[in-house]
């Protein structure tokens, strides 16, 4: 028995003969694959955004128990102890950024509805520690001034955050003097101000977090242990990357669970569609199948031919669905991240593994939908089939 006795062209041409039905069925599958891929792309986009926010040799120090910088507070004494630790790199001064992070309520440009935006107060050292952040328009804010620089995503989305505009919070008017691009990271959704001025305007005496640059990323573990084991410090340290990844956890889980549950339900519909189509393909070709059998083709060959037809059908759907989904890459998705309670923009990201997963998924739908009809086709008895003609 040779595997593909019946040429593949036979299966594909049959699909072409019944174009209308093929297109309808493939469209149903395409929509399912589209939703499947879009969900995975959104999740990949979210992860990519938050992971790329962190740098491997930066550590974020926050108070024990707090999950976000907004919840955390570190006093001056604690901050200077940590910045003197031997693992911390220094360039004249230790590379440690004392940061203040608050949320402010701003209105969105398109809907006029309010959402929370992160305002990060930091100095030049802190800005320099974020290598991926580049000023794209205007300039950086001057120390000691009521100037802010705004991430490109925030600037697009919120009222008053365009270059040259100003916003009022903490009893002051802040002028936007620059826009920065964080390279599709979470910083794109933030506002940066001078740390000292921000603390004064909110009458804060403590910091929210301390970000330090390690001399070598391999010292992360020893730095973390030093922070946790020091009895003077009620603090904990995480690598910046881990910190932002943890922030994405619940949103990512939500997107995945919701999206994949939907896909499973939809795929049942699409599989049913494929079964109906293949069922009728078999029913209308009983005589033809009988002839093939009479010519000497094995049952298994018939089975494979019909299965191939179904898989080809689903692949057409898969490719259409994927192409639709890939168009989503130019869209930006923006929502409040549950964990940090602040607005976060991220995109749809198509990765090679999503392409493979989507195609495998569509093939699986094709096999599931085509199996029963294919088995039925292979069981047709020659004599009866020929009589039916």
């Amino acid at each position: 028995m040779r595997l593909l006795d019946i040429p593949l062209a036979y299966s594909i041409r049959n699909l072409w003969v019944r174009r209308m039905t093929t297109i309808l069925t493939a469209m149903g599958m395409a929509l399912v694959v589209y939703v499947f891929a879009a969900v995975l792309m959104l999740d990949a986009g979210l992860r990519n955004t938050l992971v790329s926010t962190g740098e491997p040799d930066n550590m974020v120090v926050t108070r024990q128990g707090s999950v976000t910088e907004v919840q955390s507070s570190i006093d001056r004494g604690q901050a200077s102890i940590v910045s003197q630790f031997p693992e911390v790199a220094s360039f004249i001064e230790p590379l440690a950024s004392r940061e203040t992070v608050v949320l402010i309520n701003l209105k969105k440009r398109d809907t006029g509805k309010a959402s929370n935006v992160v305002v990060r107060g930091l100095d030049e050292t802190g800005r320099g520690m974020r290598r991926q952040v580049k000023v794209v328009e205007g300039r950086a804010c001057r120390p000691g001034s009521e100037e802010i620089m705004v991430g490109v995503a925030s600037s697009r989305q919120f009222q008053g955050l365009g270059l040259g505009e100003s916003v009022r919070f903490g009893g002051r008017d802040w002028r936007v003097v620059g826009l920065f691009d964080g390279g599709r990271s979470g910083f794109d959704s933030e506002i940066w101000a001078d740390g000292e001025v921000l603390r004064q305007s909110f009458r804060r005496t403590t910091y929210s977090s301390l970000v330090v640059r390690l001399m070598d990323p391999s010292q992360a573990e020893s730095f973390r242990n030093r922070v946790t084991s020091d009895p003077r410090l009620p603090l904990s340290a995480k690598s910046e990357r881990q910190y932002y990844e943890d922030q994405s956890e619940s949103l990512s889980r939500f997107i995945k669970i919701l999206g994949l549950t939907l896909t499973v339900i939809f795929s049942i519909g699409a599989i049913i569609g494929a079964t109906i189509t293949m069922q009728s393909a078999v029913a209308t070709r009983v005589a033809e199948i009988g002839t093939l059998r009479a010519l000497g083709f094995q049952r298994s060959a018939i089975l494979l031919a019909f299965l191939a037809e179904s898989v080809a059908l689903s692949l057409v759907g898969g490719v259409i669905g994927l192409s639709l989904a890939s168009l989503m890459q130019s869209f930006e998705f923006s929502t409040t991240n549950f964990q940090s309670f602040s607005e976060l923009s991220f995109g749809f990201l198509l990765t090679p593994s999503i392409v493979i997963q989507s195609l495998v998924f569509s093939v699986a739908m094709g096999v599931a939908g085509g199996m029963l009809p294919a088995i039925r086709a292979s069981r047709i008895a020659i004599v009866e089939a020929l009589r039916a003609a």
Partner: protein
Amino acid sequence: MLILRLLFLNIWRNKGRSVLTFLGLVIAVLAFGLLSTVVQAWYSGAESASQARLITRSSISLIFPLPLSHGERIRQVDGVESMTVSRWFGGVYKDTRNFFPQFAVDPPSYFEIYPEYMLSDEVRNKFYRDRRSAVVGRRLAQQYGFAPGDIITLKGQIFPGNWEFLIAGIYEGKEEQTDTGKMYFHWAYLNEEVKRRKISRDADSVGVFITSIADPGRAAEVSMAIDELFSNSAKETLTETEQAFQLGFVAMTEAIVVAIRAVSYVVILIIMAVMANTMAMTARERTSEYATLKALGFSPKFVAGLVAGESMLMALLGGVVGVALTYPVAAAFHEATGTLFRSFFVSFDTSIMQLLAALATGVVAAIFPMIKVYRIRIVEGLRAI
């Protein structure tokens, strides 16, 4: 009657295909209904929120507390009936995954303003007297197995350290939609501990002031009067109705709601494609039959009507069963998600929308086959066996 019987028999002629199409329809209608219910549940907090209650928070954002001393001045504002306070605690139970909302409140005034949270007299006495006690909602108690008399420890995310609470009792919702997934404890206890433990969080401060107003029609006026009191101070306020406040939360996650909505229409498109395919195949197979009917003198309209009738009957059957199944499935879904949704109800509107979607599917599926059989010439039709 005879026609209806003919339609039924026609559907039953290809059992396998009909059963599959029917199943597909049921699943699509069910999914559509569930998704609409999810979207509605998202807004449920805002829907059950009152217009006669105002929420006053910091104008900068919700994370900034307001001094308790604001409260006395708010109470004096014309139109304000009563006032209470609430502060978000943000603790986790054992593990960060076990998160549920906890609020530090002033119990007597809080439960007076919120009569929808019902405490029995016994629980009320116990809770009001013991400053370290707390009450939990029915759903919350069910999810974590909290029982009166239990001592639970929460790990504070905003207020560091471990916090122990004695469960004084369980509160019930007045209506089924009332959210019973929250925990309430004494603000005075929190404030005392903040001072005692020297936590660097503002002491003598609250998250929001909640006021009930006599006349909901004056909500805007009273809100402005409250905000006016503190304008140009270091702690400016922003007052809005409870409904607007809740809608503000929904708006933050609007992108997700929009996505779910879009997806719920996609599912209808999918099933339209499947069903249109079925009808197209059916009509093609019966071409000669329809031609025969025409030859016997039935009008083209009647023949096209047969196709439409079959499609609509199928859609209706699938729709009705789908709608009926939505109720038990939604109930199971609500069970499975615990306290994620404060209320999860299939509304009457949703059922109507489901039926309409099913019927629309029937119409769309029938259009092309109808045109085809309407136009078919008898001779051609009879030839195409």
